[in-house]
């Protein structure tokens, strides 16, 4: 299995990574190596092996439904780059 540069560009965009076009061939080769390793892994017979969702042999503890957090807005907003009227400001996300 190998990956094309179109596919790589798409993955980069989804991950919000800027990849220059002259970097693409090298990156494609390296990703192909990784995919090759995954391909090898996929040949392992996993018949009867339960899928692992967490390496710890434990169950999720649950917490009681109680409000324990107070208002710490001013502390949090003192380290934010831009705030107004209690809101965090970010670059405009719709046209």
């Amino acid at each position, binding site marked *: 299995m190998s990956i094309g540069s179109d596919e790589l560009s798409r993955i980069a965009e989804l991950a919000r990574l800027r990849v220059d076009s002259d970097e693409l061939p090298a990156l494609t080769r390296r990703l192909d190596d990784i995919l090759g390793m995954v391909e090898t892994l996929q040949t392992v017979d996993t018949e009867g092996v339960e899928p692992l969702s967490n390496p710890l042999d434990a169950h999720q503890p*649950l917490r009681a439904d*109680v*409000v324990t957090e107070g208002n710490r807005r001013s502390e949090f907003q003192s380290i934010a780059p831009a705030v107004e009227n209690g809101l965090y400001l*970010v670059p405009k*996300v719709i046209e």
Partner: protein
Amino acid sequence: MSWETVIGLEVHLQLATQSKIFSGSSTRFGAEPNTQASAVDLAMPGMLPVLNEQAVRFAVMFGLGIDAEIGRRSVFDRKNYFYPDLPKGYQISQFAEPIVGRGEFEITLEDGSTRSIGITRAHLEEDAGKSLHEDFHGQTGIDLNRAGTPLLEIVSEPDLRSATEAVAYLKALHSLVLYLGISDGNMAEGSMRCDINLSLRPAGSDTLGTRAEIKNVNSFRFVEKAIQFETLRQADILESGGRVVQETRLYDAERDETRPMRSKEVANDYRYFPEPDLLPVVLEESWIAQLRSELPELPPAKRARFVSDYGLSTYDAGVLVDSRALADYFEAVARDCGDAKIAANWVQVELLGQLNREDLDITRSPVPPTQLAGLIRRILDDSISGKIAKQVFEAMWQGEGDADQIIESRGLKQVSDSGKLEAMVDAVIKDSPDQVAQYRAADAGKQKKLIGYFVGQVMKASRGQANPGMVNQLLARKLGDNQQDA
């Protein structure tokens, strides 16, 4: 060509917990921006989620309420996408192993027929924050109070065929979650939001057409209108030989149309993988059994019981079980007055009518069940007629006291004294020689109609207080007697 509409709905239900699904922040609606956003909700480095037991309990109660498979083991996954109101860069959701599996849900349509709608799954997830695009000097404002609010996403099979069915489904779902007490169901505050998946196919076809998804519709009426618009839009495209594009659309209520969301965005690939910060959730059989035993009687069971125990029609029973409070009110009246059918009639016609006119919920009715039952008892023992009872009801609504007090103070007691009634009947007969002659000349069938005139006159003379049954008997006898005498 005739087209069949195929609809599946995804409902995001906000669960009525005090705190968030993975943090101890409050979920209260309407707080100042970002005052209910903790370090976990803000995705500060090193913060870890801890699952809220109540959110799990509510999800399981929903699953039990629709007889679904309950995931004895369920797993949280990360759904990855970038948006500023999602500070972690992923939403914690469930993918391959949801907490609620396949179930069935029965809806009743207006004609009384029922349909079973498949529920594919329901899973727990966290809500995102809110983006405010109004004027912040060309920037977007972010409020993370809602981030981390527990949601149950309920996914239906593509089993719905029309806007009417979709709305019936949503209303039944809304009623169910209120019965269960797992959500406040407040649609205006976004406690129940709906994504609509809709496609058309030639009538009789088994394969699904290409669908469009309409995101975030938040009222029954808008769901209905969005479906109607989208159905026509797709039909137009198909009729003219075009192809429907699979895309996400928005419903604009002001223009009553759906339109595509920005399409330049690359189709998202959420790259789900198991959330390493949470362990699998394992539910004990005994805990599930305990929840099952504590479930309240739910609408379908209650409706069936109202039909069999009280002899109500399926339609009437359906109206009365719409909310738990209404069903309880009706049962209190029925038990107290001893006649369920009359109780059902009064609750549905007079009480609900008045509540609707004043836009009140049953829990805020100025007339308590005991008072309504007291009124019905006076109809049943012939103290007042149904017509007078409506006057008494009006007075009770205005807070003038219970039925007996109002009947007494307004002098509304029905006249059942045969001497008094006879005098009234005689007077009316005497004053209406023309009508009497007409009556006597008529055949038996016509007489039945003509007697209405005399009854009306007697009721008028008695200001509505004459016992109508006795008046009818007296009139029939007197008019008949005279005829024989003549």
